[in-house]
Structure formats: C-alpha cells, structure tokens
C-alpha cells in the first residue's frame, strides 16, 4: 500500500491527496476538527471572504430538496480584517493546503482581498468566486459572461503571484467558454461547479421556502451535471480542473477524476457524512490498488470513449 501515490503537484503546490473541502461547507476548518485532524485532507477552501463584513441573507436560508439542498447564505462573513486577525492565526501551521475563496461586488473588492492577503504564507492560493448565485451584485454576474470573467481575472493576475483558481458557475450556456476566457486571462486553474440557481415554494403559505426567494442547488442531485461540465472543461483547457458537485462517496469522486479533474472537493455531502473526505481518500486508494495503479495520474482524465 505504501507505493500508492495519492499526491498531486499542481499550481506549484503539493497536495498530499486530491481531496479538499469546498468553500462554505467547511467553515474555516475548525468545526470539522472535532471529528478528525483536518490536515489529513489534501486541503480546504475557506468560506468566501469579502473586504467588508456581511450579515448575509435573511433566514430561512436552506431547504432540503430531492437528493440535495438549496442554500442562500449570501456570503455572510466577518470581512477581511477579522479574517486576518482571527482566522489566519488559527490556520497557520496547519499542514495542508488552504485556499481563500474570494468574493465581492466589484472588481475592486476582489482586488482588495487578494492584495491584502498576498503576504500571508498561510494562504496557498485564491479561489476566485465568480459564481455565487445568492448576492444581488457581483458573484455570478462576473461568471456569466466570458468578457467580464476575463477582465476580472486579468486585473487580479496583476495583483498576486499566488495561484488563481477560478470557481465557475454552471448556470451558463457554455461553461468551457468561460473556462477558456479565464485561462487566457492568466488563471492557474478552474474549479467547478458552484451551485445551480433554484427555488422551492411552500404551497401552503404560497411563499418561497427561502427568504431570498432563490438559492443555490447542491448535493448528489446535481452530480451528473457537474461531471458533464468537468469532462467538457477538462477537454477544453490546459490548466488543471478541480471537480465538485454532489460527491457523496469515493466512487462519485472517481467519476470526476476519470472525467479529468486533478483535485476534487466535497461540499454539502459532509453535512451528512462528516468523515466524507476521509472516506473518499481511502476509497480512491483502494480503487488504485484494486486495479493495479500506482498513482492518481494514471486515471486522471482516463475516460474511455468509443471513437465515432
């Protein structure tokens, strides 16, 4: 078992295994440390950070849907200052890759966060969130069109040497177009998918289930959409792809890897199975052993398609 290599070297970073925890579903790492040492993960992404503190959307903010859930958290976070003074000291010394999920309403917001955090070596990379469906300004607006996505990343590229991973929205006609745009703007990678905008209605009150009316759909329900987008995107760009959306077992994660993802992230599945990332890591290892592989790269993007 010792000759199985689960590590990934991408973005100039060393991931001890390909499994990260997704932004917004893992707090800033602390909560899950009651279950296990989070340094066993390949890495994790923080909750979105904006320059100013935000209280987010009014409650109710979540509702279960078939094999998934809607959320409309709305980028609630304590802001950049508090992130620097409270969160960074807590993650410093953690032996795993920490990426900061960067969000904002304007280009300047994103720029501010990247610039201010740039000197902190605790932060290995930025995941630029241009896909949050739950805010009125910014977020998904940047991610809906190749031009706006390109312009934003072009600006941020000037600001930082840290790897820029761009988190893409699935709510577009052609996700590969956005991926190519951010690649040409200098992004080091793309991560996908963020949630799909959705809504649910309480038919008795005739009101939306979420105070924000719409929210983002996540969970196993969206996995087929996510796998398809990862497959198409991985074929269409040459920067690494981080795959996520509905991972609930090692086999689910393997679908993303075989489709072309270099890393995967587990999200709301961890609400149900707190130990999901560890289950996925162990399952990937077993899979490699069972089929006689020695490293992850042998199966990344190895989907077998009949030629037509």
């Amino acid at each position, binding site marked *: 078992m010792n000759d199985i290599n689960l590590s990934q070297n991408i973005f100039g970073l060393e991931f001890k295994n390909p499994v990260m925890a997704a932004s917004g579903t893992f707090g800033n790492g602390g909560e899950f440390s009651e279950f296990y040492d989070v340094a066993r993960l390949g890495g994790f992404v923080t909750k979105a950070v904006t320059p100013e503190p935000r*209280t987010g959307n009014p409650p109710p*903010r*979540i509702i279960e849907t078939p094999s998934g859930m809607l959320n409309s958290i709305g980028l609630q976070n304590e802001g950049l200052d508090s992130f620097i003074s409270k969160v960074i000291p807590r993650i410093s010394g953690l032996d795993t890759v920490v990426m900061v999920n960067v969000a904002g309403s304007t280009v300047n917001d994103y720029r501010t966060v990247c610039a201010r955090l740039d000197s902190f070596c605790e932060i290995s990379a930025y995941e630029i969130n241009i896909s949050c469906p739950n805010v009125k300004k910014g977020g998904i607006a940047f991610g809906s069109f190749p031009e706006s996505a390109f312009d934003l990343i072009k600006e941020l590229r000037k600001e930082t040497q840290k790897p820029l991973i761009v988190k893409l929205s699935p709510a577009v006609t052609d996700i590969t177009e956005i991926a190519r745009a951010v690649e040409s703007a200098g992004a080091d990678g793309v991560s996908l998918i963020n949630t799909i905008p959705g809504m649910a209605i309480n038919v008795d009150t005739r009101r939306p289930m979420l105070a924000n009316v719409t929210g983002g759909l996540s969970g*196993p329900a969206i996995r087929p959409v996510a796998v398809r987008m990862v497959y198409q995107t991985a074929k269409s760009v040459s920067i690494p792809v981080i795959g996520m959306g509905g991972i609930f077992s090692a086999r689910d994660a393997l679908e993303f890897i075989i489709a072309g993802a270099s890393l995967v992230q587990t999200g709301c599945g961890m609400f149900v199975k707190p130990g999901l990332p560890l289950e996925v890591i162990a399952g990937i290892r077993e899979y490699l052993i069972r089929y006689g592989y020695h490293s992850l790269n042998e199966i990344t993007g190895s989907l077998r398609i009949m030629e037509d």
Partner: protein
Amino acid sequence: MHEYEAGIIRTERRTQTGCIIELECGEIALKAAPGQFVQIRIGKGTNPFLRRTFSICGTFPENGMIRLMIDAVGLGTEILCSLKRGDRVNLVGPLGKGFDPNLGGNGTAVLVAGGIGAAPLLFLAETILLSGKSPVTFLMGGKTKNHLSIIEGLVGEDVMVMEATDDGSRGYHGMVTTLLDEQIRKLSPRSLFVCGPNPMMKAAAEIARSAGVPCQVSLEERMACGIGACLGCAVRMNDGSMVRSCVDGPVFNADEVAW
C-alpha cells in the same frame, strides 16, 4: 460531539403521529445537557438527504440510553417512527447550547411546551428536579387531548402540570400562551423555558418581557451541518448580528432574538 451507530432499544407509538424512540448511546447519555440535540441520518440513500434534528428528551446514563420524542410530519420522521428495536441509526451529538437550568435564581421554573416542543423541556424538568432546589411547573399545550398524551407518564411526580388544548378537549380551552398569560402573575416564576412553534415562542417571549421574567426559548430553525460550518441556520439577534442556531443556540435568551 461524535458520530455514532446507535441501536434502537425501544420504540413506542404514543399519539397518532408521535412516538418515542430510545437509543443505545452511552456517551451522549453521559454528556448531554437539556436543550441539546442530535442529528440523525435517515436510511442510506440521498432522499431524505440532510440529517434530521431532534432535541434530546431524556438521558439514562445508567443504561447508556437516550430518549427522543418524534412527531412524524414528513418522510424522514415517518421512516424514523417506523423503525423497530434492533434497527440502527447513524447519529451525531450532543450538539448545540442548551438551557441554563439556574436561570433567574431561586423560585419556580415554568416550562411552556407546544406539542412536540415538550421534548427538550421534559429533559430540563428532570434535570431541575434532580438538582433538588427548584419547583417546576409544566404548561403543556396541544391541539386536542390526544395530542397531550405524548407526555403522559413522562413528567416527574413533583412537577405541577397545567394543560391547554385548542379545542378544549382537556384542560384550559385555548392556546398555552394565553394560559401562561393568565397565570403568570399567580405562578410568579423565576424563569420561563419555552419550546414550540416559533409564533408560540414569540408570544411567550412577549409575555415574559411584560412580566419581567427571564426567558429562554429553543428555536426551530432548519439546519444543514448542525456543527456551525455552513451558516445555514442563521437567526437574527436584536443587535443586528446573525448567529448560528446550531452552535450559538438552539436555546437563546428570548430578549436577544429579533422576533
């Protein structure tokens, strides 16, 4: 807080939709405080998906057992209530911040329950009684007398119980909060502890405020992670802040909640 595979020791159907489930879980039985909750995974599939949240209704550390009281209102709770002795469920707990049993110092603690909201208050009543220092009055509200039977035999002998039904089929005819309003002066409680539907808790909080009695409520906000990681269970406080019901609550001082 941990994840457990707990065996079901006993289930009992008590009302048309309400049941009691007793689970083997020694660690939670030892550690849990009244007002804390557990989160249970239903089945092995993804529908139901999220864990379901239930207040701990009682602990029996000597048998390594905890008791839950569950109202079957949807798919998840229906499946739970149909489980049998020997079945196993995956649960996480104990979670959340519970009641402060000493709230308000000396005097009678008045517990006000709306329907299945009785669950955490039964545990609280037991705890206060065990501490020996304070009498407990338990106001129990329900739709009909059948609904009241969910707590039958579960309230300690020393507890004074007052009942209210919406249809008047037993006890006071009206809402339990109206009963509270009428009785609060006579009861002159040191503190109120309330659990039930949100509008009922809001009403109770208002009564407590007018009477100048400290009051704690256990909010029923929908939860996803249950451990503070997702910000899904946010509740607005009077100071404008958003707090997480799952770790900063579910029990809050009533006067801090932005109702």
